[in-house]
């Protein structure tokens, strides 16, 4: 049996007396689309931060394709095939779309010390233009990111994550703050991701979540309270209680 793409065992994170994550167990198969649901403060982004290495867990362990991530620093995790996006777009404001995508590809390959200027016609820069086209930014490659709209930044951030050639991609609310008109484009983009990328996505919008997901994990107060297919989760009483506010039962 092959190793799961992501395996989390007994993971806990405490900030002083506050238990942000109590005890998380989760296993995501290669190629799977997993969506994390849950209210604000459930611990979804904290979980992402631990997987990506921005936060150290208080206890428990995280493994990527069978490899224990332990205390590997965040920047090395990118080189073992992990990419993530942030809830509020994290892009390099002062640089062009092309340079952003070029940097994303550069970091994952670990070649970052070149002292000589890169030509816009060089192979990696051409690839950056291809990566831009992939997320619908073909016309904007030379634009400075500071001039992009919110929706275009979301597209760029996903483009950067893809340019990293990840095996596991963590998307933190990719549709957050998008207008109803911009949403379909983004959903299409996520649905079109190749299956050799394993996807874990945080999403509040039930319609988007259930459309994308193979399996859904529902979190509440730092725990996973339900796991299952979209159809199961839709009718799960615990999930209904969380989303419809029914603590009355």
């Amino acid at each position, binding site marked *: 049996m092959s190793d799961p793409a992501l395996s989390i065992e007994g993971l806990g994170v405490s900030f002083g007396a506050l238990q942000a994550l109590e005890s998380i167990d989760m296993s995501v198969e290669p190629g799977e689309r997993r969506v994390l649901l849950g209210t604000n403060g459930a611990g979804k982004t904290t979980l992402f931060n631990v997987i*990506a290495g*921005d936060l150290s867990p208080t206890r428990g362990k995280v493994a990527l394709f069978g490899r224990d991530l332990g205390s590997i*620093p*965040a*920047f*090395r995790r*990118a*080189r073992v095939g992990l*990419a*993530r996006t*942030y809830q509020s777009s*994290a*892009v*390099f*404001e*002062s*640089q062009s779309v092309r*340079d952003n995508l*070029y*940097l*994303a590809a*550069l*970091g*994952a*390959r*670990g*070649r*970052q*010390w*070149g*002292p*000589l*200027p*890169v030509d816009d016609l060089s192979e990696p820069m051409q690839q950056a233009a291809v990566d831009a086209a992939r997320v619908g930014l073909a016309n904007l490659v030379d634009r400075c990111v500071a001039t992009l709209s919110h929706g275009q930044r979301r597209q760029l951030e996903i483009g*950067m994550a893809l340019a*990293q050639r990840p095996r596991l991609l963590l998307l933190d609310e990719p549709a957050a703050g998008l207008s109803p008109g911009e949403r379909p484009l983004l959903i299409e983009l996520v649905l079109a991701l190749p299956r050799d990328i394993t996807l874990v996505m945080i999403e509040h919008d039930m319609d988007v979540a259930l459309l994308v997901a193979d399996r859904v994990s529902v979190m509440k107060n730092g725990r996973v309270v339900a796991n299952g297919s979209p159809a199961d989760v839709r009718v799960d009483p615990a999930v209904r209680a969380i989303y419809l506010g029914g603590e009355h039962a």
Partner: protein
Amino acid sequence: MTRQEQIALAVAVLALALVPVVADDFWLVQIFGQSFALGLVALSLNFLSGYGGFVSMAQTTLAGCAGYMVALTSVNAVGKGVPLHPVASIGLALGVSALAGAFVGWISVRLHGVYMLMLTLALAMGFFFFAQQNVELFNAFDGIRGVVVPNVAGVSLRSPKIFFYMSLVCSAAALFAVMITGRSPFGLVLKALRDHPRKAAALGFDVAAHRIAAFAGSGLLAGCGGIFYTWFNQRISASTVGLGMINSVLIMAIIGGLRSPIGAFTGAFAYVLINTFASGLVGAERVNTLVGSAFVAVVLASPDGIAGAAKYVRSRVRQSSLFERFVAQPASGSARSAVNE
């Protein structure tokens, strides 16, 4: 670095190379030589802050490390140190300033903005007081006097024309290096660190290593300036690495403009001009008032300094109707028809 910038730099260097035809020794050494030496130190700050967003107050100290090293490994009037072959002396001086730069970068590796500024200032003041009080190595307040500048083929490197050309070539090379770094992978990563360090780490960049390398590189630039400045004065003392000098370098970098590398040299040139001639115009005790006023005026009128103002004027000229009518008609005509299509 665009083709235009390359041409502009080459033209500027060629024009400056002709200065000795018309200028006397005073201008060659006191004005231009000193401007190049201080400009290199300002360039090291410009490099750190322009690319990485690191505001370091320790650049004068890094220059001072190289200055002290070159003084201690040359023949000098106070008999400190061990005279070495000039090549070894210069190599050691640059090595020490690069190492000191890496050390400053390592100490401040997790800091940003005003916290980094305070810490680097604290390091700089620590070095200043140490140099001022240590007699064995730094000769305390008096410093190292009578530093003998090396001879090459019987000619002193301190002779005006030689000193001018040497500092010009070194400055041009340093400026060129900084400008091409801006479009290199290393330079792009530094800019990424300025914009969003956490994202840069998530993309796989070793943030700490890049910061330390940037500081080491800035130490090398500052070290070049420190060597020239020590040769220029033929001495170095604690006041060379004191608060006054630290402020002066900061003022040069800001007057010139932190956004573009050339600003370091225009700022240094403006500062040296004011510093040299102002005492004759307004009296020695009011020089600092004048420097301060010039600083405030530049910051208010053009936050990007002299280099920023020059860019602004250039873009206004391009937009003006006269320019369009007489100079750029074919280009702007085709651009307009392209828009119409």
